[in-house]
């Protein structure tokens, strides 16, 4: 079974109060980053329903990152607490099916500065690269 190397596509759901600021900063500082990721800005990590993460995997994403604020520092009261709980539960499901919880990166309060964001994306890219290919799940006809 081949690894995901060369086929990495990362989808980042970045909360506009933390993750997105980090992403913006990384771009402004011209930090060199893998070209494999795309960012979807969301107002809060609480908006990211696990179904959206599943849909991203179904559409060919090899890794999904959800970046939000500190667990105690959500701009919308405590909206990111249930988000964190839900997504951790989703990780369990991904682990069970062998897709691997490692494909889902949860970063709450860890990416609001540009260098942190860059480091995170680079590390995540490297981690996803080594995972076994999801082809047996995606290409049913074969």
């Amino acid at each position, binding site marked *: 079974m081949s690894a995901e190397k060369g086929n990495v596509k990362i989808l980042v759901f970045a909360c506009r109060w933390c993750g997105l600021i980090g992403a913006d900063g990384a771009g402004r500082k011209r930090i060199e980053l893998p070209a494999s990721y795309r960012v979807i800005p969301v107002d809060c990590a609480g908006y990211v329903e696990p179904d959206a993460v599943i849909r991203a995997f*179904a559409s060919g994403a090899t890794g999904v990152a959800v970046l939000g604020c500190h667990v105690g520092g959500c701009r919308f009261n405590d909206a990111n607490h249930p988000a964190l709980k839900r997504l951790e539960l989703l990780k369990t499901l991904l682990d069970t*099916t062998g897709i691997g919880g490692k494909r889902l990166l949860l970063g709450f309060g860890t990416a609001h500065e540009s260098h942190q964001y860059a480091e995170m994306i680079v590390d995540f890219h490297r981690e996803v690269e080594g995972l076994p290919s999801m082809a047996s799940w995606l290409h*049913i006809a074969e």
Partner: protein
Amino acid sequence: MLDQVKQKSKEILEKKEADGVLGLKKGPWDVIHPHVFTTPAEVDSLVLEPKWLFAKMARAILREKPQAWRLAVVVRGCDERAVVELVKRNQIDRERLLTIGYACDGNQAKTCLCSRPYPRKLDAGSAVEGVDPLADERVKAYLEGDAAERMEKWAAQLKRCIKCYGCRNSCPICVCVPCKLEDDVWVERGVVPAEMVSFHLIRAFHLSDTCVACGACQEACPVGIPLMTLQLSMREALRKDYNYEAGLDANRKSPVLFDFEKEPRPGQAVPDWVDSMGKKP
């Protein structure tokens, strides 16, 4: 046990505690079908086997009937938990629904891999000890091994799906209208076999904190995909992290709906930051 259930049903109908009793009826030519018994005399043809989950049916009946109409349901352990889950979601008015609970026997518990083969409100029979589903060979085969191995195993199983929606329709708790599994945004329609990741994982995840492990999805599946096994690890995670089990307490909603102050993880501090790759910021 059957006599006790019949006795209790008759009592309820005689005392007018409920207007109907929902249970299985052995009709002409020994055909067994769900039936709403409305007179005590009719209750003589009530039977308990085979396993049949009434929670969703009870919801549909109560929606059809006027507000004053009350229903009693003959339930097993799993069925009672499903009723509780529907009550939590405001699908059933608990005031209008009575339950007549009876315990399953040991064989049934082993077949279903049930950890609680008895209802909380037990009216007939005596409770037997459940089995631990995670210790069973049939389940272990799908939960062990490394990731690549498990991915192959599950892909081989799910590939056989004929997308009959039996798992969704038979589930006593799947009641959403509209359903995401019928929506092009989430799952492409008219494609067989189903899009594996989105169809199966969305279905499984929607039931993550609701699944009462009745096994109806698995029994309904015409190609025999071990669907309940998908839910077991999530049930276990909720039990371990939050000491929560679906269907036990009508007053406690799923912990994933609340923040860490209201539903903390016992023994674990609230994390200031989370990095699933395990690095410090």
